[in-house]
């Protein structure tokens, strides 16, 4: 792997079909920059993408990639990383993929603490199916399937992660390019499951969670000198703050062992002998 990898090396020659102005452009650029900045290379990187607008990312990036079944991106990433601890794994999907159809997997991927990065492009709307409520939509957000709003509180993915035993929880905003890339970079460098919820506005179907809204309201934890991300109580405070929304690293537990260290999964499983393992008859003799 060469050391002079540039972020554009992670870009494919396929032109994105996202709507002009879609937050996903910025989210993807930040991911590519962060991968390059952390010394990765398209040939040692595996990107798993979910279904939805966000799921197209595997096509627009250049790396080993799989665009799979709706909601199951995290299990695929888990399998890749367990079989190949030497490969950098990044899973990307949307709020529907991660917090609705894939919510069960999210909880378990978090607690498993597999060493990979999970980027959720959260636009609080179903864009690809043209504007229905998502699990993070506001309770009064009117859509074609929820004319009076979902009338349910939105999922708080950061709190869900914290409650599930996350070791790295962060949030970023796709148009704050430098900061976003920096946060993704921290997630990649985290030795365990690096979770980043990215506000990635949908300019076509969401007229409340807009660029202006996030620009005007988002509080950067970088400017809060009192916030200690290694402190669970500090993390809980910002994550469950019903008034303000934050960007930055909310929580990081650097002491938790990632899955592969906990379970001794260190080998490249793709390398196998031409026949049965040398001592395989021992397996048979066990049945005497």
């Amino acid at each position: 792997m060469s050391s002079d990898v540039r972020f554009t090396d992670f870009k494919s020659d396929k032109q994105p079909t996202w709507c002009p102005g879609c937050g996903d452009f910025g989210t993807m650029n930040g991911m590519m920059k962060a991968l390059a900045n952390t010394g990765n290379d398209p040939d040692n990187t595996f990107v798993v993408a979910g279904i939805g607008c966000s799921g197209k990312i595997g096509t627009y990036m250049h790396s080993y990639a799989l665009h799979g079944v709706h909601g199951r991106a995290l299990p695929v990433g888990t399998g890749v990383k367990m079989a190949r601890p030497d490969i950098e794994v990044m899973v990307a999907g949307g709020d529907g993929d991660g917090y609705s159809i894939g919510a069960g997997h999210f909880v378990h991927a978090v607690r498993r603490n597999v060493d990979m990065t999970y980027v959720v492009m959260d636009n609080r709307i179903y864009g690809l199916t043209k504007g229905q409520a998502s699990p993070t939509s506001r309770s009064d957000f009117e859509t074609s399937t929820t004319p009076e709003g979902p009338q349910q509180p939105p999922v708080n993915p950061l709190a869900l992660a914290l409650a599930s035993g996350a070791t790295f929880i962060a949030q970023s905003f796709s148009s704050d390019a430098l900061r976003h890339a920096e946060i993704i970079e921290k997630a990649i460098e985290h030795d365990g499951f690096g979770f980043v919820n990215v506000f990635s506005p949908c300019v076509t179907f969401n007229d409340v969670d807009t660029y202006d809204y996030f620009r005007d309201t988002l509080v950067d934890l970088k400017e809060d000198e009192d916030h200690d991300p290694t402190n669970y109580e500090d993390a809980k405070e910002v994550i469950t703050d019903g008034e303000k929304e934050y960007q930055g690293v909310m929580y990081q537990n650097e002491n938790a062992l990632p899955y592969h260290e906990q379970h001794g999964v260190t080998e490249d499983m793709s390398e196998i002998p031409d026949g049965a393992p040398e001592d395989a008859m021992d397996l048979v003799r066990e049945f005497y």
Partner: protein
Amino acid sequence: MGTVELSEGFSFGGGKVRHNMAADLNWAIGGEAGDGIDSTGKIFAQALSRAGRHVFTSKDFASRIRGGYTAYKIRTSVDQVQSVVDRLDILVALTQRTIDENLDELHDGSAVIYDGERSWEAEIPDEITAVDVPLKSLAEDAGGAIMRNIVALGAACEITNFDVEYLDESLEKRFGGKGSKIVENNKEAARLGQEYVRENYDFEELGYDLETTDNDYVLLNGNEAIGMGAIAAGCRFYAGYPITPATSIMEYLTGRIEDYGGHVVQAEDELSAINMALGGARAGARAMTATSGAGIDLMTETFGLVATSETPLVICDVQRSGPSTGMPTKQEQGDLNMALYAGHGEVPRFVVTPTTITECFWKTVEAFNLAEKYQTPVFLVSDLAMSVTEQTFPPEAFDMDAVEIDRGKLVEQDEVDEWLDDEGRFRAHAVTDDGVSPRAKPGTIDGAHMSTGLEHDELGRRTEEEDERVQQVDKRNRKVETAKEREEWDYREFGDADSENLIISWGSNEGALVEALEYLEDDGISVRVISVPYIFPRPDLTEEIEAAEEAIVVECNATGQFADLLEHDALTRLKRINKYTGVRFKADELATEITDKLAEEVPAQ
């Protein structure tokens, strides 16, 4: 395929097995679930195996952890045994229900061992020898009431004139981890049972005398054979979710696959399990998942992705009785259509169906080779009967030196250039003559590529261009055609090849059919048995069916899914024998069914 030929070399069903009352012994222990029935039965089965006797076990059990009738049955002979029969010679009954459940199988030469000191009054028909042994009291004398089943084993040894010392080794195997004291107590318990019977009864006239041989056998079940086959075949990543009766594959691999650099992960559900396995396979590992019942329904979601992303993956379905939750601990071969057709759209696949426990091993090896050679999902379809049956084999039946691994078009670093397009992009779904594309695993320089469940071009990128769509569909289907030509999809054959009576079966019915041949022969009926281990692609049986006067398809389901397929292939009506009680076919029962069915004038509707 090399493995087929080898495994054919060990086609135990081919040999003539004569059995009569003296040659094979049918033994069982039954009681409440939670009474240690299973482990007691296994200890006796192992002891018989150590004594150079063949063993074939079966289980009657309920899915509850405790409560409900359960039994472990052993058929043993110095010859190979591969079926259960409707006859019970020695029964250890811990409950009256155990006796009641087995009344039909008991005969006037049977002996029932029970504990007369227990609260229940044993009702045992007069013609059956009742052997009252104070199991609990003697166990307490040996060190604890918990060993009462071992006392019963000692009693059984005495009745069958089987040296109690053979139990010692299996007791060591079973209890060695708990310390020598426990082992010694158990040995003592067995001897107290033996001595009690010797002092109080005389069973000369029952005439049981278990012969021993110097042969060394291994004793294992179908799921263990699948697990062992997976490790032998280079499977290093297994993801699964516990479900009866597939779980024991996962349990086998756990603690063993790690020795070979592999790992087992228990997923949060089957949706996750198959996707984790898919991830492992995309990463270049030989990967597998196994499930049953509702688990295969959930996994269906991902079948199409495995096929269109051209990922080599082995998906094992250990069939159980359905639909829905059905009878989770009961036998059925009801998932054949599922394995063939599950998934929306048209999903190219292979369906391999081992017919014996040794074949569970060899077909698993073959499944991994097929998966990688053709980059296709391979369904390895077993069933509950095979998964819980423990059977003896000479260790050479699992000759590891004969295991061959073919990774297909997995490209080495120096081969990557051949598969790059003009712009240096890896053509992971290149349209080739045989339909098989190159496969680059992550880390291969310049091999980076996309794969997706969307229709895609050669580079794996989404397309809805008509030409590209047709090319990709054709190439995926062409892999199946290539495999049809390159691989052998043979059936296994038994009985009289020239007989006008043809019996066709798939999966675990083979053993009972092979033994049924003996009963039929005694009645002067000759039959040709064809046992099919490949459902798709499958051997064309048209000629064989046309050559026969009578053709009957035997399977454990209600609707005759395999018979439907064969009728479609051969364009003729076939007779059917279907069993869907939840219990596997027994040899003698099958012989009767076949005799009756042959006499039927009109093919079944």
